[in-house]
């Protein structure tokens, strides 16, 4: 017996929603999915009419669906937004070059302007070159830190008011779990926020319109909409520890599908006891970017690369910051410690 769609109660259901367990037909699912994103945007007051919004596009499923839905909702509900695509080219052969091709196709399909900023032009290093120097351990640290700043720099070049990223509910829940496992109380508090407020010069506010969308539903949406996206893991192995959290979350979801939302709900309702020390936000003395230290992470990492001391930005070496700022050479002992790279 065919299952009827629980929305329209007329058509045959084509899928079972991972989030609620309801059986829906294609049209009702599309509508529910889009409507949910719309309500999130409205409820969280993510955008104001007339704003220019940069969509962080990697070519992957999340950002492709984000671009598609943002364009659609902007027209359907007359948000009055000017949308643009913003991509970062990390310089990873066999991965990013391919996914950027997808972004370029998306640009034509959605008729949105596209800006690509590359690590090479911003930092003088591609990820390929970085991996050559630092090895396959901790390379994700470089990539993550650089990307955060690169997006901001790209956003400023494009003169956008806001950036929206494709982080989905699974990503947010996973980050909550990660921060608990690392005991990172400052991030634990921040990570469930749907948008960041403008933190200062050179930082563009960000938001996550897909924050409450299940990863599986994003894939379903892209599949049924036949969206063109790129799905390959990064060639430089993904982070092992995050992998544990990810597997755990998937297992949780299989035991109780609402788990993902439950974790987010937990994260949203946590708060930190008074008197717990929190990092204070300042600015980097070299580049002016936000930083809780004298030098921002990206400047330290870059310095490490340029000095041939890749471990400089890995772990905590705050006491060396003054030396770096005044361009002093490091002692031989310090150099030796930072040079060793274990594979």
């Amino acid at each position, binding site marked *: 017996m065919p299952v009827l769609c629980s929305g329209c109660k007329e058509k045959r259901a084509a899928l079972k929603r991972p989030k609620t367990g309801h059986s829906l037909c294609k049209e*009702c699912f599309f509508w529910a999915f889009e409507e949910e994103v719309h309500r*999130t945007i409205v409820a969280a007051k993510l955008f104001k009419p007339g704003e220019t919004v940069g969509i962080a596009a990697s070519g992957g499923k999340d950002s492709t669906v984000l671009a598609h839905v943002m364009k659609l909702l902007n027209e359907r509900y007359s948000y009055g937004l000017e949308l643009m695509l913003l991509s970062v080219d990390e310089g990873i052969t066999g991965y990013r070059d391919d996914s950027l091709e997808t972004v370029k196709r998306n640009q034509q399909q959605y008729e949105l302007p596209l800006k690509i900023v590359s690590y090479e032009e911003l930092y003088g290093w591609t990820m390929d070159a970085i991996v050559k120097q630092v090895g396959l351990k901790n390379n994700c*640290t470089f990539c993550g830190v650089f990307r955060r700043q690169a997006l901001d720099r790209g956003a400023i070049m494009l003169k956008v008011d806001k950036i929206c990223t494709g982080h989905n509910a699974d990503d947010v829940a996973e980050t909550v779990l990660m921060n608990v496992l690392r005991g990172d109380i400052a991030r634990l508090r921040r990570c469930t926020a*749907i948008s960041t407020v403008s933190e200062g010069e050179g930082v563009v506010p960000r938001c996550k319109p897909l924050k409450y969308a299940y990863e599986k539903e994003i894939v379903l949406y892209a599949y049924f909409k036949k969206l063109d996206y790129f799905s390959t893991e990064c060639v430089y192995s993904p982070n092992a520890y995050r992998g544990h959290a990810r597997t755990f979350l998937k*297992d949780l979801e299989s035991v*109780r599908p609402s788990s993902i939302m439950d974790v987010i709900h937990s994260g949203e309702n*946590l708060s930190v006891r008074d008197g717990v020390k929190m990092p204070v936000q300042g600015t980097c003395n070299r580049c002016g970017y936000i930083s809780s230290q004298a030098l921002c992470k990206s400047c330290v990492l870059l310095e490490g690369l340029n000095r041939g001391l890749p471990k400089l930005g890995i772990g905590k070496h705050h006491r060396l910051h003054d030396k770096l700022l005044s361009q002093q050479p490091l002692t031989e002992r310090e150099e030796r410690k930072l040079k060793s790279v274990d594979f």
Partner: protein
Amino acid sequence: MCQVEEDYRDGLERVEVPSVSKKCVKCKEASAAVVIRAGDTYCRGCFKEYFIHKFRAMLGKNRIIFPGEKVLLAVSGGPSSCSMLSQVREGLSLNAHKKLRFSPGIIYIDEGGVVGQTVEERRRTVAELQAMFKATGFPFHTVALEQVMDLPSSVVAMAPSPSEQPASNYKEAVGHFLQSTSSSRSTPQDEEQTSLPEVPEAHTHFLQQLIGSAKTLTARQDLLNTLRQHLLVHTARTEGYGKVMLGDNCTRLAVKLLTSITLGRGAQLAQDTGFSDARYGDITLVRPMRDYSAKEIAYYNHMFSVASVFTPSLDTKTTDKASIQRLTESFVTKLQEDFPSTVSTIYRTSEKLQTTCRSSAKAEPSDKCLLCVCALDTAVENASAFQATLTSEQLSQTKYPGAAGTEIPRQNPESSAPSGQCCSSGGAEDCGRAERGGGGCCSSAKEPETTDLKSLLCYSCQLTLKDMSSVEHLPQYILSEAQRRQRRSQMREEISEFLLEDGEGGD
């Protein structure tokens, strides 16, 4: 997804196999007997001293247990709570200045009825434990979980919170105590309560029905926890105890913290895992074992022959994925093997947390969850996971409007439920899943109960309720308190236009 500064070098790195030095790190003389953490080797004597000191330090640091106070030790028979019992015994027998000064009693809750043990098996366990309790000389109470069916609704209705006893009063209280008790030592009078009070078979049956009405092991475990806690608190109240000591150790609490997060209990995290938990007002739950790892306790129990008794629980002999609680436990223990700082890192997080919904001890009774007695976390702003879930459920059952751009009314969690129709967004979930009972929950008699209970529960307890086929098996004390609260809120609604302030008048 790679995040900014995603490096895990500090703490998360695998540590090398410790080079075991043969001498104790403390006295540097005796040869080592245990390795507690990597590199920390202790001899027998120093380990004992360290272990005992930790217990006293935990109580001394927190200054919550007042001298002379009656404290109920919740002993399940497991290694952790038995170790706690032995520490209290140890502490009471020490010489004057280090001595613990409260007067302990023991409670054992027999849950054999839930896990399907025979009467004979239950009797045997109880006899074994009672022999252990008798040896301590403390008064003890053996309570069958079945008794939860007969609790008065005062358990979940708030008892007035006692006059605040700030830490500054602690010194004074100690002084008083020393003066008053210098002459008369209060000796624990033997309350002869041997053997389990007879449990009528019908009660066991009711309890099993109740637990069975939860369709998932996750919900069953959650429900059992709630019932157990109610029974503990009730016994403490009727027997005149002000504090209840729980045997949760560091490992257990790390698992519990992560479990709480995965069950959507983020708002209640601080109470669920902190040293003291004042949600019940006049009775405070304390966790003095929270600094010990399970491993330390196992070593201590083994070396100093602290006996424990095995009692099966709901998740005994189940697979990893049997429930959220079970899954989290196996996740943490497995991760701990590879990354030895996992437990302590998670545990330390618990010390930095506080509930958003302010101190729940001060919240109005009607603002507290009917089951877990924590402040409700369901009245949240528009952009929240809770609201998003409600939206999803509602949208999945609404017809695609075809014409786009129409104004869709925003729905509130409160206003969507009592619309009269059976399968409103709130109750439909239950209808859909209760397949075995032939949609029993949709009959007009029970349906309002389900939806109404829901509004009295916190986010996480709502999830548990959702996993239950019906609420009719819940103990009477919960149901009648629910009805009382509903009547009260109806009354409030009727007179709302005449009320000047938002505060509840005389409850």
